[in-house]
């Protein structure tokens, strides 16, 4: 996806980083804020609206960072698992399929 409208930052601790070894996604891990690892998952406008509808407590910072923040921990874990299993950051459609199928 070229120039995504929005992003979800998946913050990477040691445990998550270990799961990405030998995956092409490891090369997409960036370091920000003087040593914090992050993977940026691209999100389209339409996907952003669906995510905010499914997770009302989440917020889209349209002014500063253009990121979707405050997704519940379980949702972020699912997103990371999809990234690790699919060896790709293009996982938001599958993420939405999963969470929208849940009651």
């Amino acid at each position, binding site marked *: 996806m070229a120039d995504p409208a929005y992003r979800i930052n998946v913050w990477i601790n040691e445990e998550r980083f270990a799961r990405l070894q030998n995956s092409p996604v490891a090369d997409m891990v960036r370091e920000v804020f003087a*040593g914090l690892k992050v993977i940026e998952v691209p999100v389209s406008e339409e996907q952003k609206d669906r995510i905010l509808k499914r997770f009302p407590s989440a917020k889209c910072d349209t002014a500063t960072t253009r990121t979707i923040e*405050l997704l*519940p*921990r379980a949702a972020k874990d699912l997103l990371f698992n999809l990234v690790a299993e699919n060896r790709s950051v293009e996982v938001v459609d599958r993420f939405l399929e999963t969470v929208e199928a849940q009651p």
Partner: protein
Amino acid sequence: MQAGSVDNTLSPHGGKLVERLADPAVARERLGRLTAIPVKDQTARECISIAYGFFSPLEGFMGRADVDAVVHRMQLANGYVWSIPIVFDLSEQEIAEYGIRAGDTVLLTYQGQPLATLDVEEIFDYDKEEMARHVYGTTEEKHPGVRRTYAYKDRFLGGRITLVNEPVFNPPYDRFWLTPRETRQRFEANGWKRVVAHQTRNVPHSGHEWLMKGAWFNAEADAILVNPVVGEKRVGDYIDEAILLGHDMLRQAGYFREDVHTVTMLLWDMRYAGPREAVFHAIVRKNLGCTHHMFGRDHAGVGTYYDTFAAHRIFSEIPDLGIKPVLTLEWWYCPECAGIAYEGLCGHKDKRQAFSGSVIRSILLDGVKPPRMIFRPEVFDVVMRCADEYGFGTPFVTEEYLRNRRPVFTLRPLDAAERRQAVG
């Protein structure tokens, strides 16, 4: 002094610190004869704030003339600047059932205990949509302040209140509760003549820390008063305990010297009124004795309702309040400067790494410890301790926290209050 003119810098708004506290023994004598009206959380908090003078010169809930002047001219009927209506709402049916008439004195109760008397000077209605349009600049119900306005019942009772039962603040709030009089006494005891206020509802990250340090330099201040608002919470907010103890930790861990920093709290339900709320915050902190108040980007804003710097511009559009606004731009992490940098100084804007409060919360939600450059480890540790001790495992407000949190304050039966006063 002419209404609306400048007070001397350290005087309260309106020139006199309001204190409306009754002797419990005297109060109990009268209370049995009064109609008791249970009040909601917001009204209880506002009774306490009015009675101790946080809202000076207000002596009670506003009548129609004050509400009308606030809504349309952002001032009280007497001309003093005021930006947010402070009202007590009841339904017409409740007023009929209680038999309340103008001229009556009623007893407001909370937690099943007496709280304050209200001398009902008038009962009136007001167009809530008109109120919302002027105060919030929108009538959209998704704005939390508008929603709060629309939730008011259909009648308002204006009149002076008198606190008859002083609240007892529970740990850890008891360490941070100071009345305006006590706050001023602390400033005086510490020799602080220039104090800059920091309004917050967040656990501090380095952007907040540097906002405060920058304002301290800018104001040539003796000290910083961190004054978090404690009021209605929403799911996903930081829990109040983490906010207060996190800020206090910045000083305990030495990021601020002991003699330049203090933390107290304000009972207030955020209206998210952007520039109008900025004016309100300035007035309240003036009443605490502050000489300066810092305002960052999007102060007290929500969504995209207000321009990023609307709260900066408003202070040039109103009479001098006697508390100086310290207007600040953004602080960010700059990989070129290899540190926290200020928008007004850093020439690497295209490489900046902005961190909003939401970004930091997102990191914590992921269970990741942020680098000390952007979030102090001592603050992280105390926030996580608060999660265990007060937050049912998380530093963020949950439904469980809303249901079962420890109360901020408790009202005791009046005879216990009398005994407390006698001992005191």
